[in-house]
């Protein structure tokens, strides 16, 4: 086993990896940009090195600096987490050349999967079913031709894509040009590569993905499926494991296909095969993510396997400590991604200082977070502040726990998506378990729709809200009256000022 690992990431996933290191008795080396000196991942780490300026391109994406830190600290391996350098094959190659273990698959494997077009070609060869569409990069003109050839609706996707970036659904002819433009610009901005491809849009598609673990001895197992069909603008917001109404037979066939895909490319480490499942339970390869997923925790909850510790072990050359037949599903798990955004105002990002942070606790609840009370959510990085995971003996209990945990979760100072999650957890379609990736658009008005509580409760809440507004106004007036004598607490006034400012702007944006 390694003695020391650099975690080339930040936020909750850096904390997640540091926890795994501590449990393995491996020293953890955090890296931090100027704005992350006070971040939680630094405080949990054994060592910490500055890696640059706030913008990711000037810090967490600086390959030279990350490798320099590995040398300086004497670390033997680097864990990339997700995002940033996690799926950068060239970085993996650099690590190999400089004698540092990259905790993930080989560079060429990543490239073959990271580029979605190449991946589709590879899978086609491996006999894994893929979504009908193109297997080359396309000019706008070719894309238009193909759209006609395949027939609308189609998905326009970035070859370098992932995480829903640079992806657009085109249902009507006239949307196509616009979709291509926006997808290219987003792809360029996100991946520095604006090449696109086109896929047939699968009707009522469900996003079902298979978790994989493979070692360097050629063993590969799957940890069953996750359902990630609750998506807003192609971003996963709520995930479940196991999937809804996935038969043992379908589970076995998808698992086998995923394992075949992994073996076809000589995969090692943790990875995920994403599939689309249509209304006939036919499934199509979507993409393979060659890293730990945000939603890996729900698989840990139903299998008891620590995925991050296992990927570190196999990176150190150990064989998988279990075989397929040792694995089984126990209960049901749900994850809600809590973002710093305002679900009551078109989900605009909501950075700022977290004035109050009271995470949920108790039975069947897991919180993975990179923040704490007093921490800053900056505008520079991903707006996810926490992952809330609940486990139950069955789906109903997992849902009841999630509702309970969302009720308990308090984050003040910034707006979060918690109220949105509460609305989803009350939606009859979601509760039925029969939903597809169109769920939020079709049944929740793109996220605006739904209510966290019943009509009567809402009236009751309204009455209390009005009373509290009067009381708050009264207290404020009273406070102002003594303003002359009182002095605002140090370090408190500042955030408030900025709140006043932002809120007025939001008022204008509304």
């Amino acid at each position, binding site marked *: 086993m390694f003695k020391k690992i650099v975690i080339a990431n930040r936020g909750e996933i850096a904390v997640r990896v540091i926890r795994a290191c501590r449990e393995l008795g491996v020293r953890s080396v955090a890296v931090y940009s100027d704005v992350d000196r006070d971040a939680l991942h630094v405080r949990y780490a054994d060592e910490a090195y500055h890696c640059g300026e706030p913008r990711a391109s000037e810090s967490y994406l600086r390959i030279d600096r990350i490798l320099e830190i590995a040398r300086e600290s004497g670390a033997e391996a680097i864990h990339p987490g997700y995002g940033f350098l996690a799926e950068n094959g060239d970085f993996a190659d650099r690590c190999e050349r400089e004698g540092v273990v990259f905790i993930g698959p080989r560079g060429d494997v990543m490239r073959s999967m990271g580029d979605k077009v190449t991946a589709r070609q590879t899978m086609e060869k491996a006999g894994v079913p893929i979504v009908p569409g193109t297997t080359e990069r396309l000019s706008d003109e070719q894309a238009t031709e193909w759209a006609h050839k395949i027939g609308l609706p189609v998905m326009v996707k970035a070859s370098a894509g992932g995480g829903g*970036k640079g992806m657009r659904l085109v249902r009507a002819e006239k949307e196509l040009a616009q979709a291509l433009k*926006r997808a290219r*610009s*987003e792809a360029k*901005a*996100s991946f520095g590569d604006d090449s696109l491809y086109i896929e047939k849009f699968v009707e009522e598609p469900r996003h079902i993905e298979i978790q994989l673990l493979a070692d360097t001895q050629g063993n590969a197992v799957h940890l069953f499926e996750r359902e990630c069909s609750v998506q807003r603008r192609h971003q996963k917001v709520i995930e479940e494991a196991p999937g809804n109404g996935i038969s043992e037979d379908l589970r076995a066939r998808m698992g086998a296909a995923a394992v075949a895909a992994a073996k076809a490319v000589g995969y090692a480490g943790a990875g995920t095969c994403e599939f689309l499942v249509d209304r006939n339970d036919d499934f199509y390869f979507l993409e393979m993510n060659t890293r730990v997923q945000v939603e890996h925790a729900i698989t840990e909850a139903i299998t008891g396997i620590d995925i991050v510790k296992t990927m570190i072990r196999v990176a150190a050359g150990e064989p998988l400590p279990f075989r397929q037949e040792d694995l089984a599903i126990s209960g049901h798990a749900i994850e809600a991604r809590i973002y*710093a955004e305002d679900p*009551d105002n*078109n989900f*605009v*990002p909501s*950075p700022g200082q977290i*004035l*109050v942070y009271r995470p949920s606790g108790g039975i069947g609840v897991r919180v993975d977070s990179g923040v704490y009370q007093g921490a800053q959510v900056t*505008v*520079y*990085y*991903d*707006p996810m502040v926490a992952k809330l995971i609940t486990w139950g003996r069955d789906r109903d209990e997992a849902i009841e726990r999630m509702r309970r945990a*969302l*009720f308990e979760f*308090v984050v*003040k100072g910034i707006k979060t998506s*918690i*109220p949105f999650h*509460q609305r989803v957890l009350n939606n009859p379609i979601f509760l039925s378990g029969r939903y597809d990736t169109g769920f939020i658009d079709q049944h929740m008005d793109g996220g605006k729709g739904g*209510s*966290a*509580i019943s009509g009567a*409760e*809402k009236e*009751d*809440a*309204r*009455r*209390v*809200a*009005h*009373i*509290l*507004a*009067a*009381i*708050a*106004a*009264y*207290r404020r*007036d009273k406070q102002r009256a003594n303003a002359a004598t009182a002095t605002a607490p140090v370090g*408190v006034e500042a955030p408030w000022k900025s*709140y*006043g400012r*932002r*809120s*007025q*702007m*939001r*008022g*204008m*944006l*509304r």
Partner: protein
Amino acid sequence: MKYLVAEKGGESQAIGLEELSEGLYEVQIDGVTLHVDAAKSGRTIYSIIQDGQQYEAMAEEKGAHGFDVLVRGQLFHLEAQDERSQLLAASAQTVAEGKQVIEAEMPGKVVKLEAAVGDTVVEGQGVLVLEAMKMENEIPSPIDGIVTEIGVSEGEAVEGGQLLFVVEPPEQAD
């Protein structure tokens, strides 16, 4: 003491308020009298107990008389003020009418302009696309009107508070 409380836009209702002791209030609302125990912990979190019912609620000041109040996961945008300052209120509530000056909420990058000066736009129509925190956000016009000014250009990095664009109602814009 009387306070007038209204949802943004809606008409206001009068709420009588008297502090009996620290945090304990006698409240007149809808013609009934209630006793409300409002304990505050931290800056904006309250525990309200009224007739045994307990609510953990948050009230955050929003500008002059506004309060965003969160109860049972429901967010209410409220205006609350002492009866006497009602006149002030009237003016305060006209924020969403007349000339609209749209500023950036946070640092970001202008990815795309979707309208030009002189264009007629309807409420909710996108005027430009701003990228912030790795997400593209379309900034819509808050009213039907005409774009009379655009303060940024495509690809430009903007600071929080920087002017993005101005929309004016047709009758005003000429």
